[in-house]
């Protein structure tokens, strides 16, 4: 059941024929009206409470911090091999392997140092929108228009047909938009066009927890760094970013300041904040303990949507991949852009910093991936 509240208030028709039912309808409407005004007042109270603590802007606090110099970042590797748009990628914990997925249905595992392809799988569907590397490095997960998330154990034998060992784990009722292993190979978190997120046991395929609260497609998710505990953040077409408790399934915080779909969410390395990228051409930073947006990264000249964001190791830099084919690099503290990177010949659709922060990788609709350092 999708939560689309506003519609229902205008269309409750009273039944005039049976007096009892009419009275019940009237009572129902009164209760609904009461609940509606209660929710409105709670919403404004929430805004008031948040505003009280808004004593300063992040960039003001950061005024005394030394500015960043010029950055020399360029493409160090180009990974060619996909036959169509690259939609998603993820790094292996070994800091050199990458898994990527494409509109052509192919999932490829690369050695980013040498640019060699190590594995390739053809999915039974096109638009493989999500892929993830298992923490052990021994498996990858992927899915898309098939509404599923499947896990493929990676074989050392190059001749082995990976598709034979495929395990279907997650089942949604619409496309899979994102997936991520938790801190082990045993559980996977998924988000879907069906408006929900879900946590699954890989071995049994059992649904462990589902997360309801988004009013439209969920497009992205990110797990909190393990030290911060069992939460994750999701972003969706309802312009909301929700923070969830993985054990209870409860939405514990919600942020609605973007003006369009949120395509990407990523935790700040300390786990105390997260960044988002949206079709409204901005990236934003939300602090979880202040419970509010604390920075907007935007420029009048940037009018194309952000598809993907990630932080550098210290959290000082925020990289954003944009639909205008560029990567903008932002000073997270000062709110200014420090660099703009060119190279891709079509939209940047996915961007991830490597596990040790020595490089970042981008995937694009131009069919390639690039490694930047």
């Amino acid at each position, binding site marked *: *059941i999708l*939560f689309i*509240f506003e519609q*229902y208030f205008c269309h409750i028709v009273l039944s005039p024929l049976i007096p009892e039912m009419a009275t019940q*309808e009237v009572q*129902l*409407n009164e*209760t*609904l009206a009461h*609940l*509606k005004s*209660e*929710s409105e007042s*709670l*919403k404004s*109270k*929430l805004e008031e*409470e*948040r505003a009280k*603590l*808004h*004593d*300063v*802007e*992040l960039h003001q*606090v950061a005024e005394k*911090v030394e500015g*960043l110099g010029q950055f020399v970042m*360029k493409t*160090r*590797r180009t990974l060619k091999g996909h036959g169509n748009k690259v939609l998603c990628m993820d790094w292996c914990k070994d800091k*050199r392997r990458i898994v990527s997925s494409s509109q052509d249905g192919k999932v490829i595992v690369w050695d*980013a*140092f*040498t640019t060699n392809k190590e594995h390739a799988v053809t999915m039974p569907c096109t638009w493989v929108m999500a892929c993830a590397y298992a923490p052990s490095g021994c498996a990858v997960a992927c899915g898309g228009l098939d509404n599923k998330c499947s896990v493929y154990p990676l074989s050392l034998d190059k001749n082995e047909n990976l598709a034979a060992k495929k395990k279907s784990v997650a089942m949604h009722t619409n496309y899979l938009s994102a997936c991520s292993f938790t801190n082990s190979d045993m559980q996977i978190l998924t988000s879907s066009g069906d408006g929900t997120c879900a946590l699954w046991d890989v071995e049994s395929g059992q649904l462990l927890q589902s997360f309801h*609260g988004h009013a439209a497609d969920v497009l992205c998710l990110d797990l909190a760094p393990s030290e911060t505990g069992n939460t994750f953040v999701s972003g969706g077409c309802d312009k909301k970013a929700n923070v969830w408790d993985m054990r209870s399934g*409860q939405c*514990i915080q919600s942020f609605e300041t973007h003006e369009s779909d949120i395509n990407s969410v990523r935790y*700040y*390395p*300390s786990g*105390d*904040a997260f960044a988002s990228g949206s079709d409204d051409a901005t990236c934003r930073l939300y*602090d979880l*303990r*202040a*419970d509010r947006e*604390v920075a907007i990264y935007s420029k009048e000249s940037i009018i194309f949507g952000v598809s993907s964001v990630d932080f*550098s*190791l*210290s*959290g*000082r830099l925020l990289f954003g991949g944009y639909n205008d084919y560029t990567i903008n690099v932002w000073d*997270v*503290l000062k709110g200014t852009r420090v660099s703009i990177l060119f190279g891709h010949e079509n939209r940047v659709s996915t961007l991830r910093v490597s596990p*040790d*922060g*020595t*490089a970042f990788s981008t995937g694009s609709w131009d069919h390639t991936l690039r490694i930047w*350092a």
Partner: protein
Amino acid sequence: MTSTSTLSSMRRLVEQLKLEASVERIKVSQAAAELQQYCLQNAGKDALLVGVPTGSNPFREPRSCSIGQDVVLVLGLDLGLD
């Protein structure tokens, strides 16, 4: 959708809002100071921010050539590999 399910959705919304309203918050000035502190403490390890000593960023090294580095040096070739 019937009125009763609208009612239960509304009740859930009100409960959710109460939960969100009850979150403990800190001032932005304190939150911002802590974000800044984390950045500055970890800046030294951030290769994309400060760079690393030449030779220790594997991606800044040229792609490993199958011939082998030694042969390349002996022949005095500058392959201009990025």
